[in-house]
């Protein structure tokens, strides 16, 4: 809201802003040492364009005396009227605008006389002429910008009137990068812009002239998407586009940084927009669908060839950061059900189906956790979910979620190990044991069956103390995975036996002797693993014994502080020394034998 202004000065400000934008656009450098400086120049450009200039233009447009020209800037006639009323504006700042508006008006007028096909010929012939002259098209040339603005106005008008023309625009832009650039520089609808953007990034690299223009078009689209959440939302709704951005970045090494960096920003902005929309309008129909669509995009991506290859670390971190605000809603979305339903913050059974399975969602989280920063964010966030137990989700839901996440991360690690040709390492062995532990606790849970009072305090304690994030060595991925599983296991135990009653009536407690037996069993397995020619069946037998011991331990009802510490000790004993070379080869997983 503008509460007061001087029309004369605002007009001068708009003019000065355009001059400033022009001067900024002339600043270029190919020196890598100038990259930060040029990034700040681009930010300044955006700040002026979307801040000062946009506000000034809005005033000029709404001022009854300045009038408007096609919804853009004041016409020469309008400006003359303003002069008559308010005196002469600064000639040095307004003359250029007057000429520009006049030229633009003339150009647009001329373009309206051309047929659709003739319009399409304009960009093609301009690019051809530059190629024949043996030079790269000067994209920042003021005359070209003028022509582009005029053509953009005419193309936008025809596209708005005729959907068929809009489709032709998209199709043509695939092999006409200058047309794509004109559309990028126009005021066309987000849907058309994103469609042309998608076509541009999916185009195969061609001659240097075309690639040069295509690069600038993509940059222009990305700049706008980053500035405009509405455009970003349309973009994020296209999984093919995200995938193509990555592919596009890989086409040419000189574009890698540009492509990936901007893709990161794109994801960041898109998720911010989605979260704001989602959280800010709970009752608005379709709000959750926005988030759901973004998630579905990521699921598709992670299950594509890109996901299999592994995402760039920066992109993975951006996705993870975008997902974190949604993590509490993942807990009750996962109920062991095959279909993943994103629910509201309450425990309502109603939810939005993503068209994805729960398994694929956990694949997504596991895939993201391949990278250190993403892993750190995920684990830290899981640890922070404790307070939601009992209010936003049940302890059982939380346990199920943490366990599934842990196993999913573990699977990714295992896949990575296999792909890396490392066969099986001690982490895989460790995880096999941990999975066995989880499984056995599940058996207990199913066996108990009776309603239990949920030990919220202990569950929170388990989150806060068993996973002290500050102590986590996040470079040590398997350790982090183990932590997740321990949280899951402990929460599940607590949910089954109750936290305040002191447990079952049998009086079985985890005492020193029991802990000693568990540790001895771990040492026994360790010894077998270290023996040459070890028989997998023997180890499996020992693991069964260990599982029995763990079962006994977790059946114990009295989870006082000492016991809890011992549970933690038992599990942490799995970490450092228990499993070491030679690799333990499982008989049940042929993949690991390769």
């Amino acid at each position: 809201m503008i509460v007061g202004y001087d029309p004369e000065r605002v007009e001068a400000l708009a003019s000065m802003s355009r001059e400033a934008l022009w001067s900024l656009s002339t600043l270029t450098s190919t020196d890598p040492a100038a990259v930060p400086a040029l990034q700040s120049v681009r930010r300044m450009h955006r700040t002026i364009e979307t801040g000062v200039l946009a506000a000034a233009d809005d005033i000029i447009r709404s001022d009854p005396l300045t009038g408007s020209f096609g919804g853009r800037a004041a016409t020469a006639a309008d400006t003359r009227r303003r002069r008559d009323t308010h005196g002469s504006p600064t000639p040095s700042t307004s003359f250029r605008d007057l000429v520009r508006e006049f030229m633009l008006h003339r150009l647009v007028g001329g373009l309206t006389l051309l047929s659709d096909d003739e319009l399409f010929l304009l960009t093609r012939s301009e690019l051809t002429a530059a190629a024949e002259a043996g030079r790269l098209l000067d994209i920042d040339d003021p005359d070209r910008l003028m022509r582009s603005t005029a053509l953009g106005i005419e193309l936008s008008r025809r596209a708005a009137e005729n959907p068929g023309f809009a489709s032709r625009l998209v199709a043509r832009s695939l092999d006409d990068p200058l047309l794509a650039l004109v559309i990028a520089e126009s005021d066309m609808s987000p849907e058309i812009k994103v469609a042309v953007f998608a076509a541009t990034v999916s185009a195969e690299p061609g001659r240097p002239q075309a690639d040069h223009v295509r690069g600038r078009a993509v940059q222009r689209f990305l700049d706008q998407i980053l500035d405009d959440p509405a455009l970003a939302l349309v973009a994020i709704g296209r999984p093919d586009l995200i995938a193509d951005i990555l592919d596009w970045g890989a086409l040419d090494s000189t574009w890698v940084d540009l492509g990936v960096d901007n893709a990161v920003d794109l994801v960041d902005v898109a998720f911010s927009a989605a979260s704001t929309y989602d959280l800010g309008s709970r009752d608005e129909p379709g709000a959750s669908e926005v988030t759901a669509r973004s998630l579905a995009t990521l699921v598709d991506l992670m299950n594509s060839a890109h996901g299999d290859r592994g995402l760039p670390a920066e992109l993975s971190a951006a996705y993870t950061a975008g997902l974190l605000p949604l993590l509490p809603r993942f807990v009750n979305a996962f109920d062991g059900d095959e279909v993943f339903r994103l629910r509201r913050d309450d425990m309502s059974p109603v939810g939005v189906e993503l068209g994805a399975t729960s398994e694929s969602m956990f694949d997504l989280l596991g895939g993201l956790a391949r990278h250190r920063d993403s892993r750190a964010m995920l684990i830290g966030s899981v640890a922070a979910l404790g307070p939601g137990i009992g209010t936003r989700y049940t302890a059982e839901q939380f346990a199920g979620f943490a366990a599934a996440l842990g196993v999913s991360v573990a699977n990714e690690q295992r896949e990575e190990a296999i792909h890396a040709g490392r066969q099986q390492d001690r982490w895989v062995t460790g995880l096999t044991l941990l999975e066995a532990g989880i499984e056995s606790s599940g058996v207990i849970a199913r066996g108990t069956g009776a309603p239990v009072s949920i030990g919220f305090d202990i569950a929170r304690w388990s989150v806060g103390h068993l996973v002290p994030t500050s102590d986590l060595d996040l470079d040590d991925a398997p350790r982090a995975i183990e932590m997740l599983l321990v949280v899951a296991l402990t929460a599940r135990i607590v949910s089954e036996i109750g936290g305040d009653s002191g447990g079952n009536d049998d009086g079985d407690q985890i005492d020193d002797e029991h802990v000693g037996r568990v540790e001895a069993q771990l040492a026994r397995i360790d010894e077998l693993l270290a023996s040459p020619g070890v028989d997998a069946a023997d180890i499996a037998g020992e693991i069964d014994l260990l599982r029995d011991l763990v079962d006994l331990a977790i059946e114990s009802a009295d989870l006082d502080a000492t016991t809890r510490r011992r549970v933690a000790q038992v599990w942490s004993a799995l970490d450092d020394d228990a499993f070491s070379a030679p690799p333990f080869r499982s008989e049940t997983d042929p993949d690991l034998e390769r």
Partner: protein
Amino acid sequence: MSHHLANVYRRRARHLRQLAWQMNDSPALRLHIHAGVDTWHGPRPLASTSDLRRAQDEIHREIDDLHVRATRFDREADRLDAVAYAASAAHLNAG
């Protein structure tokens, strides 16, 4: 004798200083003069002008940084020249 890389560093230093000069000369850094309360006032103008000042501050920092980098490049060029000179002198003495 001058090391060939020294020339590269000096050229880059010159380029960075020129870029810094161009950035400093941009009307964008003086735009705030035209965006004060005598031009407009209200929440949106205030926010726009604040954003502008922040962006200007950032540009000023980058200009300083370009000068620092240019100086560093010059120093590196001097160092390379000194090494090249010493190597040349040693070669002559040995000859």
